[in-house]
Each structure stands twice: as C-alpha cells, then as structure tokens.
C-alpha cells in the first residue's frame, strides 16, 4: 500500500470511528431520555422505577399471571376494595395491597410474593424501623414485629412463609385481628 493509500485508509477509519461515536452518543441520549420518561409515572407516585400500579386485584393477577391470596377474615373497620394495588416483577414478582380504615387513614398493608418464598422487595414495603421483634407462635419462620413507618405511625407486622410464598401483613388495628386475618389467608400460618 502506498503512503497516500494508507493515509486515505486512516482517514476513512477515523471518520467511521467518529461517526460511530456520534451515533453512540445520540442513541445513548435517546435511551436515557426514554428511561427517564418511563420512570415519571412511578416518580409521580413517589415510588422507585419498576413498581407498577394496577387498578385492582384482578388486573394485578392478570399482569403478574399469579393468584393474589386474600384474607377470608376482613374486619368491618377496613374498607374494601384496596386503596392501592402495587406490584413489581423483580425476582418472580410481588404484589402489595393497601387498605384504608373506616376513618380514611391507612390501616392495613398486605404484601406477598407471586411465586417463590424469597424476600419481598424493600421498595414495595417502604422504609420501616423495627423497634421490637419476636418469633410468633404461628408456625415456622413467622416473625411478629412492632415497626415505625416513615410517617411516624406505629404498626404491628407479621411475616411468614407458606405455600411457597412469602407474606407480609401490617396493620394498625388490634394484634388479634391481624393474627386472625393472617390465619384466614389460604396457606397462612396455622
């Protein structure tokens, strides 16, 4: 190859590399913009990206393609349907239902994995400070705790594994009602 040919080849290669670099920058910028745009609905609900909202339990079941287990015992002090149905697809998928009390304040929170008895994603549960914890006489691995939520409210919390799923039930009512509700969930602690 002549010196002129080599120089032309070098120029072509550098031109091609520059073109690819610009293309990468443009596509990278577009990807970043799209990811940001996709995160806006979650951010507007005050939640991290990945947590989705469903209009009801049926929609969550359809989107996760898994049955959501509900307590058969549901005290009159709680409002049906759930005020929020949130789910996440990470690690097999998990769903969380929030219920309001008769006074309109948050009163009950039920989260469960859609498949697998691994841990529930912390993003779905929210930030909680455990102030007291003990094993519950409800079967293997059941844990009863007293927790403080981000807004400073105190909750009773029950966690257990059953039927190949992990459950998390949190309530502001009486502990007896919470345990009764947990036991009434199909596959709940006995």
């Amino acid at each position, binding site marked *: 190859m002549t010196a002129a040919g080599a120089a032309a080849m070098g120029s*072509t290669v550098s*031109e*091609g590399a520059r*073109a*690819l670099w*610009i*293309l*990468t920058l*443009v*596509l990278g910028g*577009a*990807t970043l913009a*799209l*990811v940001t*745009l*996709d995160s*806006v*609905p*979650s951010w*507007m*609900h005050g939640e991290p990206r990945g947590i*989705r*909202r469903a209009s009801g339990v049926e929609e969550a079941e*359809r*989107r996760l*393609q898994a049955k959501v287990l509900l307590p058969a015992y549901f005290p009159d002090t709680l409002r049906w349907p759930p005020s929020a149905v949130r789910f996440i*697809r*990470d690690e097999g998928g998990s769903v969380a239902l929030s219920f309001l009390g008769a006074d309109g304040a948050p009163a009950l929170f039920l989260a469960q994995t859609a498949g697998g008895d691994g841990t529930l994603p912390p993003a779905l549960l929210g930030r909680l400070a455990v102030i007291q914890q003990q094993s519950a006489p409800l079967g293997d691995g059941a844990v009863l705790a007293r927790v403080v939520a981000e807004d400073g409210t105190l909750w009773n919390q029950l966690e257990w594994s059953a039927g190949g799923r992990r459950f998390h039930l949190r309530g502001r009512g009486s502990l007896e009602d919470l345990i009764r509700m947990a036991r009434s969930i199909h596959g709940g602690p006995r």
Partner: protein
Amino acid sequence: MTGQRWMDFAGQAIFHTLVAALVIEALVRLWGVRQPEQRIGFRLLALAWPLLVVPALFLVFPVREGEAFRDARSVFAGRHWDDLAFLGVGLYGWWIAGMAAMGLALFLLDLVPWLRSRSAEPPPWIARTPEGERAGEALSRAAASLCMAAPPLIFLLEGWPVLYCTGTRQPAVVISLAAVDLLDRAELEGALAHELAHLERRDPTLSWALMGARALMWFNPGVQVLVRALARDAERVADERAATATGDRLALASGLLKLFRATEKRIPARSAEPFPLSASLAEPIARARAHDIEQRCRALLGPAPEPIPLAGFRFAAAAAGLGLLLFFVV
C-alpha cells in the same frame, strides 16, 4: 386485532416515528449531512419505521406485546403512563388521542386544499402567444441542459405567477403568462429546469406515494411532518440538479425569490378558505414557507453541497442502532 392491540399499534407507530425522526434529525446535523439526496435517504429511514418496521415488529415479535416484556424488559412502555389517569382515562390514552388529532389536522391541512385544487375548473390555456413561445424555447433549452426530452408545456393565462410540474404517466410543465413576464431569460430557464428535474426524478409519482403514506398514517403527526420535510428535500434536490445543469445558481435563486415574492400575498388568502382554523394557521404557514425559500436561496448562493463520506455505513449503523433501541420501546 382487538381495540387494545390497535391502540398499542397506533401508540407505538406514533412514538417510534417521533424517536426515529428526532434521532435521524440529530444525526443529520451532527454528521453534517448537507447533500439533499443523502438527507432524503436518512429521512426515508425514519419514515420506514411506522410504515414497515412497527408492523413487522408486531407480526414477528408478539412477545413484545406481553406485559412481562413491557414491565421488565422495555426501555420505555407507553402503557406505564396509564398509571396516571385524568377523568378516568390513562394519560397514555389521552396522549394517543391528542397525537391522532394533531396528525389528522396536519393531514387535512394539506389534503383539503389539494382536493379543492383538483376539483377546480381547468384554467383556460393557449399554445401560441409571444410569452408562450418564450416559455417553450426556455423549456427546450432547460431540457437540453438536463439531457431529457422536453415534456408538453401548458401555458395559462393566469394573472398570478404559476409554475409547477404535474402528471405521473403524462408529465407536463404548467406555467402562466405572469410567471413568464416576471422572470428574465436565465431565471426562466433555471425555474423550468427545476421543474424538469422534478419530472426526471418522478417526483409527482413519489408525491402520490407519500400522500398515500400520509393517508395510511393520518393519526401520526410524525409522519405528516416527515413527509413535509421530504418534500422540502425534494425541492432542494431539484434546485441542485437545475443549478448544475444550467450552470447558473444565482439565476435560479433570483427566480425563486421573485416567484415567492409575487405569490406570497396570495398564499394566506388561499389557505384561509378550507378550515375554520386556517386563518390563525396562515401566518405560521407563511412564515415557514418564507423560511424554506430563504434556506433554498442561501443554499444556492453557496457551492453545491458535498456528500458525506461513508454514507452507506452511516445509514446501516443508524438503522441498526435505531432498530436495537426501538425494539425495547413498546
């Protein structure tokens, strides 16, 4: 297809066009693509997205329509915006409705005047006047410079300057008495060479195809805007071809400017007819037209634009990159 699937298709067609058009526009500017033929190539790539790629994605990859793909694998999913609702309807639904309304408005804005002009009575025309003879001679010279046979010339007795080409199977150049009076010899030859360049490239046929694409994608404002950009590029291509053939870039620019100035007062009045909103749109349309003419004249005042190197490689890389990105946009 179910209503939900049609909505997903429409949403993706609109969104993919917007992303593809913006990416292509950024690349055209950053890569410095100035030659109009190359610009057309890149813009056709963006136009191919809603017309070919999105239908193909729906047919070949039904997995993209699944909720698992949407929630776990996608870079962007329009349906996630349905988590936010207004008046009981998700924002994604509102966005599609708004875009469809905008697309339809842009389509009708061009379609209605076009249909009216086609249904209008044919204007009177004569073959032999001194101006007609002059136009005929200029057309023959322009055709010779482009190495093509001169098409029939339709000479109108219009008081307004009129100059355009027409016909898919039987091409012809239409010119009015006022246009011949307005332009000097070199300007007339340049302007006629411009129209012949359109015929040489079969632009009248292409414009039918693009109108078909617009009708098919009436709900897609991106397509409506892209086709307009392609029409502007086609004008630039014809300008360059005419300027190269006649060898007088300044005469073409001067003729272009004269024709624009002589017709600019008439355009708002014509476009005010078809729509209730046309009167308010007339001003921005007139400004956009003036901007286009200015850009074309500026381009003609400079040397002919050089093609960018490695155009095929850039085109393939842009297509592959866009394909990869938009596969994950549902």
